[in-house]
């Protein structure tokens, strides 16, 4: 026993790998394994009548996905919706987070954080249906359903996920910097441009990862308020739920994964991932 302990004490590398192997294996199996299984399924096909999975390798699903004009349209629309939601949330969240972090008293701050979090306690469906009622022709807003309604609803749903990271980022921003800039004669806009924005940019990116990825995967809100529209999530859902075509659904599901990987690769350089 002591010999083992001594050996482990001498070999830091062995000690580390023994400690890390179990959690890493779990992560690998549960998370990456699931992704890999999804990816493998995308190369299978389905017997159209019995719905049994046919496990022979085929590129057909990806071919259909790339050649089908409708899927290109839907992917572009989904990315557009995700971007619009992210931008709206950013515009709404930044001033709110700034007021919370820099203008409110410490006591009010705590209450404001709770107030931002309260909508998360309500059910997703209740919130989406509330928007449906508000947007329907006899409702409070009465703007009708469609893509605009979808963007609005999603922007409302994911707003807390944008406020909180930005709030955390602004809280870490020293007040002395803002005061120094003011002493040196910088106006509000210039302080924002040269100090606040660059220093909170990683936090903004962190929030945008939430809003962007959540919007990209959504298929329920668009069913409730989207009118006749559909997004990537609906195509995945229709192919699993309706056609029972798991392979094609898996092929479609790889699209948001690829989009998100590209997005993450782009933001990694900003150092935002350290803030998550």
């Amino acid at each position: 026993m002591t010999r083992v302990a001594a050996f482990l004490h001498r070999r830091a590398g062995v000690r580390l790998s023994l400690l890390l192997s179990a959690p890493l294996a779990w992560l690998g199996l549960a998370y990456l394994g699931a992704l890999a299984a999804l990816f493998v399924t995308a190369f299978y096909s389905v017997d159209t009548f019995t719905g049994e999975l046919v496990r022979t390798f085929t590129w057909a699903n990806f071919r259909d996905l790339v050649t089908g004009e409708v899927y290109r349209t839907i992917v572009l629309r989904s990315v557009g919706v995700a971007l619009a939601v992210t931008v709206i949330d950013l515009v709404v969240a930044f001033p709110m987070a700034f007021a919370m972090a820099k203008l409110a008293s410490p006591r009010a701050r705590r209450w404001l954080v709770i107030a931002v979090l309260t909508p998360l306690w309500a059910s997703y469906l209740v919130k989406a249906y509330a928007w449906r009622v508000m947007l329907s022709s006899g409702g409070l807003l009465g703007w009708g359903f469609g893509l605009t309604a979808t963007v609005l609803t999603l922007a409302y749903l994911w707003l807390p996920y944008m406020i909180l990271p930005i709030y955390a980022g602004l809280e870490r921003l020293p007040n002395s910097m803002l005061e120094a800039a003011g002493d040196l004669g910088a106006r509000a806009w210039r302080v924002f441009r040269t100090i606040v924005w660059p220093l909170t940019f990683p936090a903004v990116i962190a929030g945008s990862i939430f809003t962007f990825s959540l919007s990209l995967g959504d298929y329920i809100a668009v069913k409730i308020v989207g009118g006749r529209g559909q997004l990537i999530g609906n195509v995945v859902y229709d192919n699993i739920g309706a056609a029972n075509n798991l392979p094609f659904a898996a092929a479609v599901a790889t699209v948001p994964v690829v989009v998100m990987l590209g997005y993450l690769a782009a933001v990694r350089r900003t150092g935002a991932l350290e803030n998550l």
Partner: protein
Amino acid sequence: MRRIGTAFAAAALALATACGGSTPTQPGAPAPGQSGFVPPALQAQRAVGTGEGQVNLVAWAGYVEDGSNDPKVDWVTPFEQETGCQVNTKVAGTSDEMVTLMRTGQYDAVSASGDASLRLIAAGTVAPVNTSLIPNYADVFDGLKSKPWNSVNGVPYGVPHGRGANLLMWRTDTVKPAPDSWSVVFDPNSPYKGKVTAYDSPIYIADAAVYLMATKPDLGIKNPYALDDKQFQAAVDLLKQQKQIIGEYWSDYTKEIQAFKSGDSVVGTTWQVIVNVAKSEQAPVEAVLPKEGATGWSDTWMVAAKAAHPNCAYRWLDWIISPTANAQVAEYFGEAPSNAKACAETADPKHCETFHATDETYFSKVHYWTTPIAQCLDGRTDVTCKDYAKWTRAWTEIKG
């Protein structure tokens, strides 16, 4: 550290790929159809023993009511008291959802429509039903027995629950004059542009085909579920044109009721049960079977091949087509009962007349949902028809 992580990730990936890829490839099932369709060899039950204490059902909304929605609407509690089988119900919104739920193997019986039943039979998800163990089967209308959607080569795979048509519903305060044709939902110049609604499922392509049967006879559509390339393209084009006047597609019935109540939708396809609920909630709606005919359903209660509670499932099948329960469900859901004796049991003595239960000429205008397959269901052998997977792809394209 990073090296270790990568090594593990690679190992996990290799493992997952091995798990996924090591299964032997299965030969494709034989081509389905009237002659080439060979369902898996499964045995029907020979006897009904003591109940297992519970039964798990997959059903349409309104088929299995235990009083929780409306205390006055309850045909489950008497069944539970009589048989000791506790009923657990999973309500499905679409036929496709039913097929998916039944594949999980957690359910004993399902109220499958014709666009799902053949898929369930072919996949071996449901077993043949021994109708001699179901006394009430004798009283079922002959017009519903041994039909292509509930039996194969004369072997019944379930008991008929009831039948009805997919109707055209409109708001009486905005849609004038009262429509009697589907043209109001297909005409690109419809005055109700932006307030038209349609059923959000690939099977809705058949509704367009029914309309084309009446308006474009030169296409030669005999069966809306057997469409060759040209006919299918015509139906898809019609629906793409229709999309311009659609306000929203509906798939769950609460959404349609809400849309008609608020006036977001004023005209579109519906089920009788939706009309009934909307009327009970004071929405000014009416419904009609348009002159072109319509799609419809004739549902079948089927028993899962691997049912954990087969005895309770058989008792349920007998119960739901018994005169009393069948009358209650038909009246609540708004459909024609399947049991001939149920007509004497309905609270409204005119119910069977209203729903044309014995009127075969009425139902000759109704094209029951059937699973579209590559082999043409109308008997043509010189062309191939579009199967359901292609219908699904087309539906995604129609919605755009």
